């Protein structure tokens, strides 16, 4: 058996696999997604198309002309000037310069501004500074210009916030206390999300992004959903993109609901429905990359989940394609060969409306 197709592992390591091994990994990946999510596997034809994308000998692959989609920006402009933690290259650019460079030099479909912490809570005390930067930049941009950050419920627990730390209470068996702490924290989070969104809406906010919602569990996700609904009530014309943080909503609380649906354990096809119910305009999905599995395995999983979400949704579905998500290898500089294969597969086979 020849090992002549060069691909990657989930941690980015370059490996050579035979065609048979790649097909086996694709089959295993789609089967795993189907079993976990209770969704259909990719058809034999789709698996073969995915094989062709992965096995393409070119370093870079792309969708066909006419099949292109929207690439929404989730903090990318910050990576012009930020450092390693944000995947940033540390170029000496101002925020506005970064946004305009991304729009004009890179041809981005949308751009964004965000606080360097990339959480909403720290924005609250500096909202006037952020509103000022947003407003000034929005006068210069032509493409849609979002403000984006993560809800990040974790910042509301002691010692960083006012609520007892659920992550400490839970292992002590103090389940009721931990749940109450999460509910209290979610209340604070929703208020802050609405506060920041409303204040930015006052200065002509074109779009708001609740990125990586649910990273601290189901209460985090609930807070973001509630904020979407409240903002839509207050500012009905404010476009909102709400993205999830993983292939299922982590049940740190386990019982919180939104619109009668228990949030813990929701997979992408149900995440997009609940995001739609809250009133968001675009839903984001994120599928975990397993670093010990191959790109064919991870990408087959991601495509299977994204396709199911896309079919279930009435609003545009954008797949999160950052580091370690949706098949992108988990490393600081994801290899371009993998990145473009993920990009193409999620659009062509996952039927994503955007990335």
């Amino acid at each position: 058996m020849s090992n002549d197709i060069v691909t990657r592992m989930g941690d980015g390591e370059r490996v050579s696999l035979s065609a048979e091994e790649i097909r086996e990994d694709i089959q295993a990946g789609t089967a795993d997604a189907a079993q976990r999510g209770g969704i259909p596997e990719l058809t034999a034809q789709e698996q073969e198309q995915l094989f062709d994308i992965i096995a393409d000998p070119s370093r870079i692959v792309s969708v066909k002309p006419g099949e292109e989609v929207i690439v929404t920006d989730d903090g990318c402009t910050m990576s012009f000037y930020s450092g390693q933690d944000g995947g940033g290259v540390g170029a000496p650019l101002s925020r506005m310069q970064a946004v305009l460079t991304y729009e004009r030099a890179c041809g981005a479909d949308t751009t964004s501004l965000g606080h360097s912490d990339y959480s909403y809570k720290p924005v609250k005390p500096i909202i006037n500074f952020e509103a000022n930067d947003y407003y000034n930049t929005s006068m210069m941009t032509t493409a849609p210009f979002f403000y984006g950050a993560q809800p990040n419920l974790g910042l509301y627990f002691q010692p960083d916030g006012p609520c007892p730390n659920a992550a400490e209470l839970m292992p002590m068996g103090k389940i009721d206390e931990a749940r109450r702490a999460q509910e209290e924290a979610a209340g604070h989070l929703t208020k802050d999300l609405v506060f920041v969104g409303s204040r930015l809406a006052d200065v002509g906010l074109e779009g708001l992004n609740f990125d990586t919602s649910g990273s601290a569990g189901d209460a985090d996700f609930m807070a973001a959903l509630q904020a979407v609904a409240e903002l839509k009530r207050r500012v009905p014309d404010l476009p909102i993109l709400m993205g999830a943080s993983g292939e299922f909503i982590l049940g740190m609380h386990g019982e919180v609901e939104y619109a009668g649906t228990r949030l813990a354990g929701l997979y992408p096809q149900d995440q997009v429905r609940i995001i739609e119910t809250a009133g968001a305009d675009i839903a984001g999905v994120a599928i975990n990359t397993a670093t010990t599995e191959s790109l064919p395995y991870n990408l087959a999983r991601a495509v299977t989940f994204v396709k199911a979400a896309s079919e279930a949704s009435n609003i545009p579905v954008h797949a999160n394609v950052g580091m370690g998500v949706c098949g992108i290898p988990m490393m600081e500089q994801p290899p371009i060969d993998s990145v473009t294969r993920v990009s193409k597969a999620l659009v062509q086979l996952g039927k994503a409306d955007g990335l």
Partner: protein
Amino acid sequence: MGMHIAHIMASCMGGIRTSGDLVAWMQMTRKMRIHEAKAYVAEKLGVGIIDLTDEEIMRDIRKDLGIGTVTSIAGGPKGIRAKYRIADLLGINIRSVALFKSQMGFPG
């Protein structure tokens, strides 16, 4: 950073190089799925869907309509002036434009 550029090259519509911004506005303001959004924009521009990502076609259209070109043209609308025209062209509400209009005393 390079990852974002790779995604743009592999599957992005091209922003203001072509019509990616216009299609994005339709997803944001009307919750349109990608095919519906493209069809809407193509109809407004009077071109085929395949043309939406054709730089050779979109360059002239953008220049003629004054909706912003990727290369900087002295006197050519960009920024809020281009968005003002985009909102009008697509028949949508762009919130920054609405604020600008109210500040300038233009009719909504």
